[in-house]
């Protein structure tokens, strides 16, 4: 079924159409399950003025952090940005905006965008800075704020395996934000460790059905570990 073959053969092709001032939704939590190849390609392209929606912004010199080096990022929408000195510097210098968003709300905003839900109510953030200026409504005696969905011009996603039709599975906790990100891009690019033939993945065990995926590429991954914690054997 060639019409459903999502495989592209280069990151140039994978990120084709990315332009200045676009919004990118990125999967990953910390450095776990991040689309390393797409991020490297964005750096290479030098695209500027980007709004990036991602739980974190990598670390200095790795992950999304490398996009700060050439000041490609205008705004980050994240829940936690604490691991990155360059980030803090650019934030303090006013070169970078940040919109802090609770982690669960961020995940739900991505899911909602993909699911045709323009907004939802959540108790998270009511009465805090996050709730300021947002609609408040009471249900069953409790107050909730209205949060809007968030869609990207691109979504960049890291999977483990995918078939050519773009059916993706994730490995362990590298799943994190990736399945929601995959639904929320006008163009969704998925990079995986292994591309398999259709039929090799169990249909009932697909995490991201191919309908959400526009381009699929096989990459190689450093998978840097942020907090290496071990116990004695």
């Amino acid at each position, binding site marked *: 079924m060639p019409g459903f073959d999502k495989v592209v053969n280069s990151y140039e092709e994978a990120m084709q159409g990315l332009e200045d001032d676009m919004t990118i939704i990125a999967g990953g*939590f*910390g*450095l*776990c*399950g991040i689309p390393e190849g797409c991020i490297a390609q964005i750096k290479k392209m030098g695209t500027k003025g980007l709004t990036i929606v991602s*739980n974190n912004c990598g670390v200095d010199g790795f992950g999304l952090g490398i996009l700060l080096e050439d000041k490609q990022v205008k705004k980050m929408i*994240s*829940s*936690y*940005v*604490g691991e990155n000195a360059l980030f*803090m510097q650019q*934030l303090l210098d006013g070169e970078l905006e*940040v919109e*802090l968003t*609770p*982690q*669960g*709300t*961020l*995940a*739900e905003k*991505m*899911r909602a965008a993909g699911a045709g839900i323009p907004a939802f109510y*959540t*108790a*998270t*953030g*009511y*009465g*805090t*800075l*996050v709730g300021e200026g947002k609609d408040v409504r009471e249900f069953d005696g409790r107050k909730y704020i209205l949060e809007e969905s968030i869609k990207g011009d691109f979504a960049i996603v890291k999977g*483990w395996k995918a078939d050519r039709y773009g059916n993706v599975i994730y*490995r*362990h*906790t*590298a*799943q*994190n*934000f*990736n*399945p*929601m990100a995959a639904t929320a891009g006008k163009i969704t690019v998925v990079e995986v460790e292994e591309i398999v033939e259709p039929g090799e993945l169990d249909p009932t065990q697909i*995490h991201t059905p191919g309908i959400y995926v526009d381009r699929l590429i096989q990459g190689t991954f450093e*998978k*840097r*570990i*942020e*907090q*290496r*914690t*071990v*116990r*004695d*054997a």
Partner: protein
Amino acid sequence: MALSREQMAMRVARELQDGYYVNLGIGIPTLVANYIPDGMEVMLQSENGLLGMGQFPTEDEIDADMINAGKQTVTAITGASIFSSAESFAMIRGGHVDLTVLGAFEVDVEGNIASYMIPGKLVKGMGGAMDLVAGADNIFVLMTHASKHGESKLLTKCTLPLTGAGCIKKVLTDLAYLEIEDGKFHLKERAPGVSVEEIIEKTAGELVVPAEVPEMTF
């Protein structure tokens, strides 16, 4: 004497019940896992998407794709489940987690909590903390009773940006265990050897002190 970090963890561990799903925040809350009573089982939820977090891996087991919410490498117990962040916060926001233990900078008599941001200092973000305090019915806040300079952290009104409004009912400090009800702190237990007077002195928000305040034992 004020409770040690370990004693604080031990005291919280007494709140556990067999079959509890528990989310433990970074820092002292993490230590609670070391004091699960014998014959009791709890399952740890890590908000990045893991239910049934196990111990740290050995060097051989280490896997970059297997981390917890603190971004530490971990393992999963037998019978664990691993899922997306949306599913993870569905569990949290939906009230399915039985006990949430987390740290704070300040709490106040209205059950407000400030734990993620000190304006003028570095702004790191709330991560999952706002969802955790909004979603759970049963939250234990762990913190020192006063700052190093002796300023109370149990206030009439939080001074720092809030993590959540009106969601805290139980606070364990190094000096006391208190519950929040009707706009007041209620002193329930004191640390061994800590006087009621010291607790009164270090509690800025209105405090209800019963005739008898039991001393914790360890």
